[in-house]
Each structure stands twice: as C-alpha cells, then as structure tokens.
C-alpha cells in the first residue's frame, strides 16, 4: 500500500434497509493512519455507513447493498470475502461501552484467543500492550482479574478500545465513542485517538470533537455524502450551504 494512500475506498455505495434507501451514491476514501470524522444530523446514515465497513450490517434482515467497498485494496463484499477476517482487520468501538461480563484480562484476550493465542506469557504481554495503548494500564494493572463491569463508564470504554486493539487491527471504527462518557473520560479517549497510530473512522455529534481529533471530515445529510475534505476546510470554509448550516448549528 502506498503510504498516505487510502486504506478504505467506497465507490457509489447505495444501501437499503428493505425498501428504505439509507445511503445514496456514497463515494469516500479514508486515508491510512489518519482520523476521519463522520458528522451529520441524526438519521442521516453515519452509523449505517460505519457498519458497512466491517460488515456489521450483515445481521440486518432485508439489508441490500450496491457499489463497492475496498479495505486495504480488497473488495470486502466480493463473493470470496469473509466477514470474520474482515472484522479482525477492522475493529469497532460502540456508542455504549459493552464489555463482556468477564474479567478485564479475559475481555482483552477474547479476540486473540479466537485466533488461537493460548500461551499465558504471550497473552500477558498482549494485555499489557493493549491496555497501555488504550491509556488504561495504570488504572487497572492491579485488578486485571476483576470483572470489567465494575469499572467506571470511561474505563469500560477504554477496555473496549483495548479489546479491539488486542487484535492489532489496521482500522478502528468508533461510533460516538464518548457520548456516554463524562468530560474527563471523553478527554482521555480523545487524547488516545490523537496519539493512535492507526486509521480511525469516528462518528460524532460533537463538532468540537470532530475538529479536535480528525484530519478529514465527511458531512452526511439524508443518506448523501454532501461534502468531504480536510477538517480545517470543512469547518472554516465549507463549500456547501447545507454543511455550513449544520456546523453553525442552524439545523440538525
């Protein structure tokens, strides 16, 4: 892959929930190792688009797709592509923290164990690395065997981040990852996003957050990608009237 080239390429994506046309001709490239924010009013299709990138919409009965989505150069909806291996490459962090009702340690090991990691020594290293990467190691290093459900919301969300990172994904999808968190926990997660050395696609309702953490911003409206460009430009001189109205709070 060319450095700085796109890691995700979406081309003419149309998506339907049954008869409902949720995404209309969306084409968008996600730059490798950078953060791309998806913004837009509620119901415009941000989560729908995000979930297409790791095939989490496969579970929706009656969902249909046309167009093409490539991840790391390979078409993920081709007849020979396997959702399970795609999801290892493309991790996801959800809106509400959703740790498993297991220990912190077992939460982090869940993904690696699925692909056959068994040795305690290897897993220990992995857990420490993932928790450090998610800026949680110091908080929990003495209680790894405690249930992840006993942590605070912000800590739980960082467990979820660490859990996704334990598989060393190329890409991390985050759907409003801080909407259930308080300002301090939010700041920690944002800090992490800015430092992270991987490609991130983040959905957010918070304009300041998009401005703070992302290099590129995509504005969706009623299932269409209205405008997409460097975050600085979208926020300072948007080309489209609808984008300007949205970011200045005139609707949405």
């Amino acid at each position, binding site marked *: 892959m060319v450095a700085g080239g796109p890691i995700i390429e979406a081309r003419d994506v149309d998506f339907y929930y049954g008869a409902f046309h949720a995404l209309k001709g969306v084409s968008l490239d996600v730059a490798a190792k950078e953060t791309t924010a998806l913004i837009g009013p509620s119901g415009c299709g941000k989560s729908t688009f995000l979930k297409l990138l*790791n095939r*989490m919409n496969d*579970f929706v*009965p009656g969902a249909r797709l046309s167009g093409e989505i490539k991840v790391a150069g390979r078409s993920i909806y081709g007849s020979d592509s396997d959702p*399970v*291996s795609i*999801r*290892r490459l493309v*991790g*996801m962090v*959800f809106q*509400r923290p*959703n*740790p*498993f*009702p*297991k*220990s912190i340690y*077992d939460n982090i090991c*869940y*993904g690696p164990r*699925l*692909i056959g990691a068994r040795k305690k020594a290897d897993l220990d290293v992995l857990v420490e690395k993932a928790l450090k990467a998610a800026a949680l190691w110091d908080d929990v290093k003495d209680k790894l065997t405690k*249930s*992840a*459900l006993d942590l605070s919301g912000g800590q739980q969300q960082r467990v*979820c981040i660490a*859990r*996704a990172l334990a*598989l060393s994904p190329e890409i991390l999808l985050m759907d409003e990852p801080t909407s259930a968190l308080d300002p301090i926990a939010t700041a920690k997660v944002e800090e992490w996003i800015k430092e992270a050395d991987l490609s991130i696609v983040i959905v957010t309702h918070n304009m300041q957050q998009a401005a703070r953490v992302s290099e590129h911003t995509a504005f969706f409206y009623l299932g269409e990608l209205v405008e997409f460009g460097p975050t600085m430009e979208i926020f300072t001189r948007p080309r489209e009237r609808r984008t300007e109205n949205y970011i200045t709070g005139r609707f949405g």
Partner: protein
Amino acid sequence: MSEARLLAPKLSPTEKGFRLFFLAAAIVALGQMFLIALFLLNEAAGLLATAPLGDFLFSKDWYPTYEPPEFGALALIVGSVVVTIGSSLIATPVGLGLAIYLAFLAGRRKREWIKPAVELMAGVPSVVLGFIGLAVVAPFLQDVLDLPTGLNVLNASFILALMAIPSIASLGEDALAAVPRDVLDASYALGATRWETIWKVAIPAAMSGLSTAVILGLGRALGETLVVLMVAGGAAQIPTSIFDSVRPMTATLAAEMGETAIGSAHYHALFALGAVLFVLTLAFNLLAYWLGVRWRRG
C-alpha cells in the same frame, strides 16, 4: 437555620392498611411453610420408636406389611435419585439445545410458533404423559428390546424428561434472550463466528439463568408422583440396569398412604419418606439459588 426534617411523607391510613395486609400475607406464607415442615418432621420422628435412623436410610428392605415390618428406604431413595438423574441426562441437553436454537438459530417465523408450542407442552397434565408411557413407551421397549417389562428406569426417565424439557427450554431461552445485543455485537465485531459468540459470550453471560432453569426442571422431576407411579414399575429394589423397575419415594407415598392406619409405624415411615423428599427438594432449590448468585457476575 431551621431543623432538619424527614423527607419521607407520613403514611396515610390507606397506605398503612396496605402495608399491614402485605405483611400479614408474608407472615401467613412463611408461617404455613414452617408449620408444614414442623408437622412433617414431627410425624417422621415417630418412626424412630420402631426403626433407628441408620436402618431407615441405609437398609434396602422395604416390607411395610410384614410381621415384623421392615422400613429400609434406601431402594426408594435410590429409585428417586436414579430416575431424576436419568431424566436430567436426557432433558438437560435437549432442553438447553432447544433454548439455544430458539434464542439464536431459529428465524423469527419459526420462533413465533415453536416457543408457544413448547410453553403449551409444559401445561400437559402429568397423567397424560404417564398414560403415554404406559400405553406407548412401555410396549415399545418391551417389544424392541425384548424385556420382561417396559415399566422401568428408562421409561420413567424418558417421560420425566418430556415434562422437564419445556420448562428448561422456556426458562433457558428467557435467560439467553436477556443477554444484551450490545455484548453479542462486540463479539461479532472481534471476528467471532456465531458459534463462538454463543459458546463464549451468550452461554457464560446467561449461566445463572441456565443453571436455574436446569435445576428447577429437575426439581420438578424429583417431586413428580403420577408419572413414576404409572411407569417406573413399582419394584422396591436397587436397580442394576436402566431396564430394571424401581419404586421412587413419591410413588411409594401415593400408593401406600391410603392403606395405612394413622399413627401406625407404617404411617410414620411414610412421613419419614416425605421428610427425605422435602430435604432433597430444599437442597435443589438452595443449589438453584446458589448457582444463580454465583454466576451473576463474570
């Protein structure tokens, strides 16, 4: 600064009345439980005049109408335990399998009629199931396996399993359906297959409910009377194979209660059997409770 006062408002007379009513209901329920247990143990203790506890529990000779009578309950206790274990070996995998199928594998359409059908099955009167054991299963076993009688451990276990499966499946499905969708999505998003998600996330998360479902289903098998009276064969012996007849405690109680004189040694012996059943059932419920608590958190 004014004096701090209680925030909870004073109860109105109606509210007080309600409170009293519910308190009384609780006392009545607990009190009757307590009185039943007391009565049972008291009547059972009457046996000790005739037979020591050790003989009652560990001798296998149950000859209540001989002269002198013998009240060794071991064969009856073993009879109950054996059919309960037998039914659990059938009902646990089938019931839980059905629960998993309903919760994760059946499409919405199939669920919509299978689940009510299963719940309806739970309502079939035990005498009907017993009759099926008598009229269908027994002759079948006898013919196919060439046995002297089809009324045996296997038949009783099978019919008891039929009784337990719907409740295990229904309670088990409730437990699995209560696992949050979020958590299952997290598993899929980490590249787990459907089976891995069921095994490693859904089942452990629902373990408390699943184990309760199994124990309650089996508790029902242990206490069930009519079915074992009809299809277990009625022989007070320690079985050496699943094709032997047995006489579980409940069947003994039902069969012999009518023909004993109140206050006789036989009468006390039957109460002693009742007390053993009571203790076993209590143990089952405590186990269900303990498992429920134990598995609640990861």
